[in-house]
């Protein structure tokens, strides 16, 4: 087994999940630049049934030959089945419920999978001003399911976000329904240590799998709430040589 980085680990695990979703006819991914785009493009290369990549810049069905450096990369438009305006991509495609899985990340995530990408500290006098919402609130609202990819630390995985930029499960089970949200909300939180999923009864994020070589204490120490582990806690498979080679070739292209 070759060595791998934390990012590679997260990307490979995300790609596996996308492959499983595509095989189950949940192919349409709404992807941002960075880890999500890399994971989605990796899945396109690894699995016979490919995810369909949809970028918020209006590209539908992009098949980039190399990883885009920005969401507006010309390569995305040139290799798409269709390019539409930004109002259209949000209205006719995301809002209408045509996206099976959306990706989110942020500076903070809380135990109900709400995400903060707006400010650390108070909104009026922020300690750190972050870029803000972008497409996140409506991805969180309307995508069939949401996958979160974030490096895990007690500073980032918090009891309650300083600011709720996009909603996971609000203050717990039932909030999404109360708000009338049509999307399914966060289903998987993939970190450099573990994979979390919402508990079916409470919607609180619980650890369902550890990455190879990671133990419970490490995860607990990197989580700002008293995180729970499922009884049948799994260990994710090591990234395979094929996965790593394909990923590295993609990133080198």
């Amino acid at each position, binding site marked *: 087994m070759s060595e791998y980085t934390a990012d590679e680990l997260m990307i490979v695990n995300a790609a596996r999940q996308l492959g499983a979703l595509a095989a189950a006819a949940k192919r349409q991914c709404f992807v941002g630049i960075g880890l999500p785009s890399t994971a989605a493009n990796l899945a396109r290369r690894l699995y016979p049934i490919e995810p369909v990549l949809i970028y918020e810049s209006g590209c539908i069905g992009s098949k980039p030959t190399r990883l885009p450096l920005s969401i507006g990369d010309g390569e995305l438009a040139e290799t798409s089945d269709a390019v539409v305006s930004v109002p259209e991509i949000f209205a006719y495609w995301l809002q209408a419920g045509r996206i099976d899985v959306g990706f989110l990340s942020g500076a903070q995530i809380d135990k109900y999978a709400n995400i903060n990408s707006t400010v650390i500290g108070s909104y009026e006098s922020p300690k750190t001003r972050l870029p803000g919402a972008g497409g996140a609130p409506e991805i969180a609202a309307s995508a069939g399911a949401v996958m979160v990819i974030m490096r895990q630390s007690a500073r980032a995985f918090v009891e309650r976000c300083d600011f709720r930029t996009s909603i996971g499960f609000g203050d717990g089970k039932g909030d999404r329904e109360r708000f009338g*949200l049509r999307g399914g909300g966060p289903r998987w939180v993939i970190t450099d240590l573990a994979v979390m999923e919402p508990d079916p009864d409470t919607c609180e994020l619980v650890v369902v799998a550890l990455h190879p070589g990671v133990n419970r204490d490490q995860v607990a120490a990197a989580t700002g709430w008293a995180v729970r582990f499922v009884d049948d806690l799994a260990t994710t498979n090591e990234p395979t040589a094929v996965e790593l080679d394909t990923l590295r070739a993609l990133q080198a292209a």
Partner: protein
Amino acid sequence: MITSLRAAVYEFVHDGDTLALEGFTHLIPHAAGHEIIRQGRRDLHVVRMTPDVVYDQLIGAGCVTKLTFSWGGNPGVGSLQRFRDAVENQWPHTLEIEEHSHAGMATGYAAGAAGLPFGILRGYIGTDLPKHTSTIKTVECPFTGEVLAAVPAITPDVGIIHGQRADRSGNVQIWGLLGVQKEAVLASARSIVTVEEIVDELPEIPGAIVLPSWAVGAVCHVPGGAHPSFAMGFSVRDNAFYKAWDAISKDRDAFTAWIDKHILGTADFSEYCESVGIDV
């Protein structure tokens, strides 16, 4: 009307105006932003889904008192340093912000282009944004009773975009990622479009849209005027410039020196290009 960028900014952009310099990564009108700094416009309310380097420049140069936006970062690099300094430390002065989501702003632009006072979307609900942004409200569907988010139309005084091409009558042709370019022009009372080239006749291009001359204010021939953004078919994104901007903008003095030398110290965009050493 085909004119110089200097004349267009002079005539169309006034102190206190609301401006939208739009471009969703593609076709961002950097040259026009520079000219606004050069002409010393102040007290501007600038609107954009993805304020990036050119808004960082306008904010740091003291032109802006209010920013309406949905994602303010340096794509692929990190923070917008001048934007952060303004919000966190009020430098060079206080910056009022009005913060939305992409979907909310896209809805607002579409409403503006359509002459509607507001637009509706399935959005914002469950987030903290409505607590801090007074322009996010709700409406009830008169048929189903569902509650939806409502945002006001975005109706800038001046919409400014870069595009690929115009003909000599001023019909503008744009292709590739279209973003909200059409909406930004149509929603605005006045508009400026900088283009890569002006031709006798617009060739047909797959995926291209045309804005008829009578729906556009000024058309200005500014090749490379989107740099470090790009114009599909003419240029590629200068990712190195975006990365370099982080260092320039991190320090107030370095930023000010850069603006003084390259923007205020140059007469127009071609002098600017020579000054910063880019070949467009």
